[in-house]
């Protein structure tokens, strides 16, 4: 099967559709600016905001006043553009996010506690913001094919990968894939505590770079079998050539100095495409402009391509800011625009290099672009790389096979902790339980390093999320600690297990309410069918937190402690 791209949609700080985005890129017009809508006390930081208020977004989208997170509003705008372009109905919507409806939670926190804003509470679930986007498209997408990968800043690329796998295994005919993420005080302050935000416009790959600017937006591709696209006379904008996700398994937030995970992801993606490194015309780098990312990513480029044969490289985050979970979608769309319009976007504001840093493209280059590599890396070393091409690349298809469950271990079955004292220091009680059940399940299954670690969670890591949220609200964004933020992302658990077990394999996390486990199984079923993995650790977790249960009581629900590990193997 050749996977054709027949629709693209994008909204970010540099435009609310493809036309505006293309114009901004060609004219080298950055969207980094002072805050307008993010209501932070730290207004001296610059951000890449979408230039529309929530009210203006609603108006443009023709929506009434029913509550929706900004993530969903941005997602609806971009997804509608992609669908309109492909001129057909789709049967899967896979959209990465981590922030989800956190903006509503932080704005209405006191109303949540007193039960005044009960209609918003559900949006705290990442998957719920995705479901809301799917509901506002002009088609009915089966519930089982509305899926939210949540691996922080690589979420949207991981969504694209799952969509491709679902096409190749006959589980979808035409999929909308990418991601959406709005700015929130929560992750803005989280990044602030990590001290990786620049107060100036960011300078990716520059020797004097001093951190990132946060951005927001959404970006989607519509993907389908080329044969179907040709049969219905659709315009083909490009092709997915290869893709891979790996884990750096190094640190909860930092990348390894040699960029091992990034190297492995790019190498595997290239191998799937059958292309050589020398075939790549352009790399859209992750390029956040933090000291650590750009050095590590540069090392991975030099490892894969050699210092003399580097293709043209730029980070478009100097235009959009770091759009976190949406970045893979937004930057994949930018790559499709680059291929269709024969140009390489500039890496704005770059001035000076230093040893170990790649030299990016500093002015828009007008030249044919046939093959592109697009990177997105997330917390926990979640490294994803996508190959796009202007011609079809044959990818194997497979009939679905069912994974076999060989072990199930839950928290009641592990009586003593399997976490050492030094490992335990920074872990929450739930993390200790999860590591214990994971280790026990792997031990029982006789598998040291499974090919994939996939987590499923409805609410995510709630203890640390609620800690950070309450500290932020109570202290007025003043007294915050980095550890709760780092451990608040949905994929903190999957990456922790990978780090502790030195596992560089596939790593993903799904958050789709009660369907989360089903999403994780869809993923490993697809990958096993395609022969990419033959074993997987699937961890199901949720965390009971009193303060959130008090909120949920207003809608007659509660959270539960779940820590269950299953090991699956291929038949």
């Amino acid at each position, binding site marked *: 099967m050749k996977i054709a791209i027949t629709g693209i949609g994008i909204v970010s700080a540099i435009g609310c559709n493809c036309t505006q985005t293309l114009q901004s890129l060609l004219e080298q017009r950055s969207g980094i600016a002072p805050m307008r809508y993010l209501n932070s006390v730290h207004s001296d930081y610059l951000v890449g905001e979408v230039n529309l208020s929530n009210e203006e977004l609603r108006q443009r989208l023709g929506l009434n006043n029913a509550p929706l997170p900004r993530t969903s509003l941005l997602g609806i705008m971009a997804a509608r553009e992609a669908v309109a372009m492909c001129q057909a109905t789709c049967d899967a919507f896979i959209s990465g996010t981590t922030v989800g409806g956190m903006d509503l939670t932080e704005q209405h926190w006191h109303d949540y506690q007193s039960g005044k804003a009960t209609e918003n509470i559900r949006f705290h679930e990442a998957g719920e913001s995705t479901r809301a986007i799917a509901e506002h498209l002009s088609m009915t997408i089966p519930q089982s094919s509305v899926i939210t990968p949540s691996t922080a800043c690589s979420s949207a690329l991981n969504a694209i990968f799952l969509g491709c796998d679902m096409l190749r295994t006959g589980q979808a005919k035409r999929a909308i894939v990418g991601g959406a993420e709005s700015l929130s005080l929560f992750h803005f302050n989280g990044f602030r505590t990590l*001290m990786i935000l620049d107060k100036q416009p960011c300078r990716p790959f520059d020797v004097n770079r001093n951190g990132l600017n946060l951005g927001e937006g959404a970006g989607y591709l519509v993907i389908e079998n080329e044969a179907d696209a040709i049969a219905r006379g659709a315009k083909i904008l490009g092709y997915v050539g290869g893709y891979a996700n790996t884990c750096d398994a190094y640190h909860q*937030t930092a990348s390894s100095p040699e960029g091992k995970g990034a190297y492995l992801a790019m190498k595997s993606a290239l191998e799937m495409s059958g292309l050589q490194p020398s075939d790549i015309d352009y790399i859209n780098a992750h390029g956040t402009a933090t000291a650590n990312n750009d050095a590590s990513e540069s090392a991975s480029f030099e490892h894969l391509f050699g210092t003399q044969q580097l293709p043209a490289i730029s980070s478009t985050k100097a235009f959009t800011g770091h759009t976190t979970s949406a970045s893979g979608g937004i930057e994949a769309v930018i790559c499709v625009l680059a291929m269709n319009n024969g140009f390489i976007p500039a890496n704005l504001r770059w001035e000076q290099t230093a040893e170990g840093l790649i030299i990016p493209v500093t002015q828009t280059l007008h030249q044919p672009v046939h093959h592109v590599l697009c990177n997105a890396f997330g917390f926990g070393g979640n490294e994803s790389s996508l190959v796009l091409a202007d011609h079809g690349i044959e990818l194997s298809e497979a009939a679905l096979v069912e994974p076999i469950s060989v072990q199930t271990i839950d928290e009641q079955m592990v009586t003593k902790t399997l976490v050492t004292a030094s490992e335990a220091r920074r872990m929450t009680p739930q993390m200790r339980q999860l590591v214990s059940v994971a280790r026990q399940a792997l031990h029982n299954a006789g598998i040291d390093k499974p090919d994939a670690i996939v987590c499923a969670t409805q609410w995510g890591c709630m203890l640390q999320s609620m800690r950070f949220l309450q500290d932020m609200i109570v202290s007025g964004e003043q007294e915050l*600690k*980095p550890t709760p933020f780092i451990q608040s992302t949905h994929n903190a658990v999957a990456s922790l297990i990978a780090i502790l077990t030195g596992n560089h394999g596939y790593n993903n996390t799904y958050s789709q309410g009660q369907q989360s486990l089903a999403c994780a199984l869809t993923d490993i079923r697809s990958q096993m069918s395609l022969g990419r993995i033959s074993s997987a650790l699937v961890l199901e977790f949720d965390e009971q937190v009193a303060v959130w249960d008090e909120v949920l009581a207003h809608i007659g629900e509660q959270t539960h402690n779940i820590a269950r590990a299953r090991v699956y193997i291929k038949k």
Partner: protein
Amino acid sequence: MEQLIEQLKQQIIEALNFEDMTPADIATDAPLFGEGLGLDSIDALELLMLMDREYGIKIADPKAGKDIFRSVRTMAEYIQEHRTK
């Protein structure tokens, strides 16, 4: 100074979750990073936040922590000189 050192050790134990440790377990002049307590970059950020929270010391450059956090003593000396609360 001795009182500040003692207080600081307690704050470090709490901020960095050294559950089973007491201030007596931390040598005042031992390195905090690498050997010694074996702290890492996340701990460094936690310590910067601790300095802000408890002593009103704001440090914008995370790299600056390197010298300040050589040992509990160097940290206490820096606090004594720069504290605003």
